């Protein structure tokens, strides 16, 4: 058990490509930190540098207080779980799990005992004599875990360990890995591109984009207070609705004009977000789909009228997509890049030229494409972003 400190870690390849740029993180003892980001964001490279599989171009890596930059991987006391499991095909499950112990010259009795114990922990003790070829995907995954667990290392590194499993098994293993990690209390760095995995498993989540750290925080904070437009668009599914809006002076207070809709901003909120300096300027406004409801009686303020274009009934919720007459965030902004890549079926631009929004509706309502709806939102739930820097707007 040890804490990991990563200080200004960078990776530049021979061809000049910079995969990781000045990454700094402090991972506490026993913590599970999730590195998340779209493919090519440098999360796996960062993990491999911690593992010692990749040289560190610059920066420092400390594990348990010891500088590890030039320590060979075999002396770092790290166990890694690979995306493809990387089980040794010619060895039995027991040999796979026990290989590292055998190499560290432990007595045969001890190896057998620890392999058995680990297998029991992972509920694969009946499979010890099988070879990887004879195992299902989920069983292979468990063996890969077992190979890491048996070593009782200081640190676990996991590189998308669940991405080869089917959806149902993934949810199950997600819980199992998390509770196993808590039970063993081993500091863990977990890489994934799946923001649901990141949200559900991590004690903290680190969001990366193009090799740059965007935000590190608890899952709730990353969700509720995304540091910038990229994080706002990446975390959450369906993604946050985003549009350009104007902050206007409204009497002695402020208001946000979102297309034809104008909402007054309560004084406390304006103060908390530091919106006063934004009066007369344009901002990017974000609303999570679950904060956008069908309008009930009363409150007409902030109503967005629209015609439903597409409906996704998910059982527990009903998602309705509609085009709103507001300006989408400028093309080329981080969020346009992300949503365009990960959610190709939810374009930012609606069919009528406005911005595509998504809202949650009461399940089992007879919402159909073509239906006219009015949606409202709570001003408190709005997110504001600087259109130039794309950073979230908060009071200093």
């Amino acid at each position, binding site marked *: 058990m040890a804490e990991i400190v990563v200080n200004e870690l960078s990776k530049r390849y021979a061809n000049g490509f910079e995969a990781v740029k000045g990454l700094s993180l402090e991972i506490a003892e026993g913590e599970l930190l999730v590195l998340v980001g779209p493919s090519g964001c440098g999360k796996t490279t960062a993990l491999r540098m911690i593992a010692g599989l990749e040289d560190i171009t610059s920066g420092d890596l400390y594990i348990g207080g010891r500088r590890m930059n030039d320590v060979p991987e075999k002396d770092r006391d790290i166990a890694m779980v690979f995306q493809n499991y990387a089980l040794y095909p010619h060895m039995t499950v027991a040999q796979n799990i026990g290989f590292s112990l055998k190499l560290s010259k432990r007595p045969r009795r001890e190896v057998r005992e620890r392999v058995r114990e680990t297998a029991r922990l992972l509920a694969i003790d009946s499979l010890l004599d099988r070879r*990887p070829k004879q195992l299902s995907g989920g069983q292979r995954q468990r063996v890969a875990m077992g190979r890491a667990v048996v070593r009782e290392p200081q640190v676990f590194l996991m590189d998308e360990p669940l991405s*080869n499993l089917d959806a149902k098994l993934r949810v199950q293993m997600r819980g199992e890995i998390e509770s196993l990690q808590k039970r063993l209390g081993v500091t863990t760095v977990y890489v994934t591109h799946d923001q649901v995995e990141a949200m559900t498993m991590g004690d903290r989540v680190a969001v990366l984009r193009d090799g740059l750290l965007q935000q590190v925080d608890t899952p709730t904070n990353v969700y509720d207070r995304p540091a910038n437009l990229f994080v706002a668009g990446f975390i959450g599914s369906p993604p946050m609705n985003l549009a350009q809006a104007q902050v206007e002076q409204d009497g002695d207070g402020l208001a946000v004009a979102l297309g034809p809709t104008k909402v007054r901003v309560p004084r406390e909120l304006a103060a908390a977000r530091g919106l006063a300096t934004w009066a007369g300027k344009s901002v990017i406004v974000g609303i999570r789909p679950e904060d956008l409801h069908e309008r009930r009686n009363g409150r007409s303020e902030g109503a967005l009228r629209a015609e439903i274009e597409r409906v996704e009934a998910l059982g527990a919720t009903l998602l309705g997509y509609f085009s709103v007459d507001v300006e989408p965030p400028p093309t080329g902004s981080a969020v346009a890049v992300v949503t365009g890549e990960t959610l190709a079926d939810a374009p930012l631009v609606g069919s009528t030229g406005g911005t595509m929004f998504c809202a949650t509706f009461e399940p089992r309502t007879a919402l159909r494409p073509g239906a006219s709806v009015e949606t409202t939102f709570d001003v408190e739930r709005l997110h504001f972003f600087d259109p130039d820097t794309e950073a979230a707007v908060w009071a200093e």
Partner: protein
Amino acid sequence: MSTTSAAPPAPLPIRSRRWFARRGSRVAPLKYLGLLLVAIVVLMPVYVLLVTSFKTLTEIDAAHAWSLPSSWTLDAWRQAWDELSPNMANSFKLAIPATLISVVLGSLNGFVLSKWRFPGADVVFTFLLFGMFIPYQAVMIPLTQLFDDANVPTGIPRLVFAHVVYGIPITALIFRNYYATIPDDLLEAARMDRAGMFRTYWSIILPLSAPAFVVAAIWQFTSIWNDFLFAVFLITDPVSWPVTVALNNTTGSLVTPFNLQMAAALLASLPTLLVYILLGRYFMRGLMAGALKG
């Protein structure tokens, strides 16, 4: 499915049997006829070789080359065996160690050229490959000179040495290409399990190398067994001649004992034939595995 547990290449599905059936029954007989004709052309010399080897010397003339022997006799075979068996033994003493050493070297070379790479591995590999294109004739004299200068023991050791060196390019190529199909994840897992270079080779790579060993061994065994040129200029003492050189010397100076020659030729080719028959399936499989994935 993308599970990368690097199983040794699975046998390729054989679809040839259906291939004919699908083309309709009317065309199939014609195809078989065509194939049969080609097979006959190929087998004709083998037939002559076989029947001649069972004839007596007096019965052999061009007019009756195609007829079966009037009385079958093993005399030629017996004589061939008597004359060639010491040289057959020499050939085994040559081909077995030379094959073993060169496949082991090939495996090690392939490992460091593909999976445990060192700076400049590709350049070294390119130069190794050049070795394949150096004709034996070009090195005949310098090689002999070098062996003399270096006091390499004469006889079979020299030949083993020469074949091992000449085998390095092809065996390195075979193993390198085969190892390229083993996922890197597997080696990284071994690194994380704290295995060093030799342990990784011994415990991970070697157990997965069987197909490549079969391919390289068949290749090396047949080419070493069949080699004539190296043997004829590197070995001066007839006692150490391998079977290929001895076979050449069964030619009489005045009369050519065809029956003896045919029997001797068949005898000399039996070991390679056996190797192909016994291991040929693996040979194709190994070649294909590399070809498909590489």
